[in-house]
C-alpha cells in the first residue's frame, strides 16, 4: 500500500471525505451551521443555550411519534430560529415578510447570468438587498 507523506486534501487520509459521508447533505445545512457558529464565535449566541434548544427540538420530534422523516438539520434550524427570536436578533414579522418575498421569486432567480464560481456570499448580498424593496 502506498502511504501519503503529505496528508493534504488529495492524500489518502484527506478528511472528511476519506472517512465516508459528508457532514452536510445540502447547501442550506452548511449555511445554517456556518451562521450558527459565526454568532457563537462572535459572542451573540451562547452555545450551551443553543444546545439546550437543539436537544428540546430533537426530543420534541421524537415525542411526536416520528411521523415524518428524520431531518437533523431541520431540528437545528428550529433551535436556531428560536434562539434568534428570543435574543431579539431577528424580528419574526420581518422574517415572515422576507420569506414570503423570497418564495415569490421566479425560478432561476439566483442565476441571472452564466458563471461557475461559488457565489453563496453574492446571493446572500442580493437577498439582503431585497429586504428593503
Amino acid at each position, binding site marked *: 500500500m502506498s*502511504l*501519503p507523506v503529505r*496528508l493534504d*486534501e488529495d*492524500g*489518502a*487520509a*484527506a*478528511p*472528511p471525505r*476519506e*472517512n465516508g*459521508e459528508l*457532514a*452536510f*447533505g445540502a447547501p*442550506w445545512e*452548511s*449555511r*445554517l*451551521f*456556518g*451562521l450558527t*457558529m*459565526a454568532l457563537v*464565535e*462572535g459572542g451573540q449566541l451562547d452555545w*450551551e443555550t443553543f*444546545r439546550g434548544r*437543539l*436537544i428540546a427540538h*430533537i*426530543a420534541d420530534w*421524537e415525542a411526536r411519534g*416520528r411521523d415524518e422523516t*428524520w431531518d*437533523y*438539520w431541520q431540528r437545528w*434550524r428550529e433551535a*436556531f*430560529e428560536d434562539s*434568534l427570536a428570543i435574543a431579539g*436578533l*431577528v*424580528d419574526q414579522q*420581518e*422574517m*415572515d415578510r*422576507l*420569506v*414570503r418575498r*423570497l*418564495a415569490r421569486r421566479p425560478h432561476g432567480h439566483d442565476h441571472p447570468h452564466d458563471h461557475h464560481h461559488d457565489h*453563496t*456570499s453574492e446571493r*446572500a*448580498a442580493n*437577498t*439582503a438587498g431585497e*429586504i428593503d424593496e
Partner: protein
Amino acid sequence: MTIEDAGPELRTEALEALLVKKGLVRSAAVDALVERYEQDIGPLRGARVVAQAWTDPAFRARLLEDGMPAIRELGFGDNTDAHVARLVVKENTESVHNLIVCTLCSCYPWAVLGLPPAWYKSPAYRARAVREPRRLLAELGLELPPEVEVRVWDSSAEVRYMVLPRRPQGADDLGVEQLTALVTRDSMIGVERL
C-alpha cells in the same frame, strides 16, 4: 404557500439576509467558517493524535490524563470546541471496547474528528448505542467476542469523548505519518476496530 410551508432553504436564506443586514454576520465570514469545518478540521487530526499516542508513551499518558492540553501540543483544539470544557480519551484494550454517542443531540469531539457523520446524529444510533451496543456494533460489521466488555460514553455539555483504538497488528515498523493514514474516523468513534 404559507410561511410554515416554506422550505428550510428559503428560511435559511432569509435568516442569513437578516443577520447580514443587521451587521451581525458577514457572509464571507460564514463562507470561511464552513470551509474551515469542512476542509481543515476533520478526523485527520484525531488520526494524528492516535498515531502520536501509539508511538510516544509519555504523550499517550498525557492524552489519557487530559485530552485537550495534549491535542494542543500537536497544534489542534485551537478555536474549535472552545465552548467545551473537556476532551476525554478512552483507550481500547484487549478486554475493553469503547463507543461514543450523544444520546440527547449530536455532541461530538469536533476538535479532533471534525463534524459528525449523519448516522451519528440519527435517532436509531443515539438510542441503540446505549440500549444494545453489542448488537448495533455487530450490524455495523464489528463482532466483538463475548469476553470483551463494551463501554458506552454519552457526551454531555462538559465532556466530549474520543476512542483511542488499538494499534493494528503488524504495524510495528511504521512511523507516525504512516500510522496516521491507518486510523479511521469510525475507529475513533468506536464502531470499528483497526
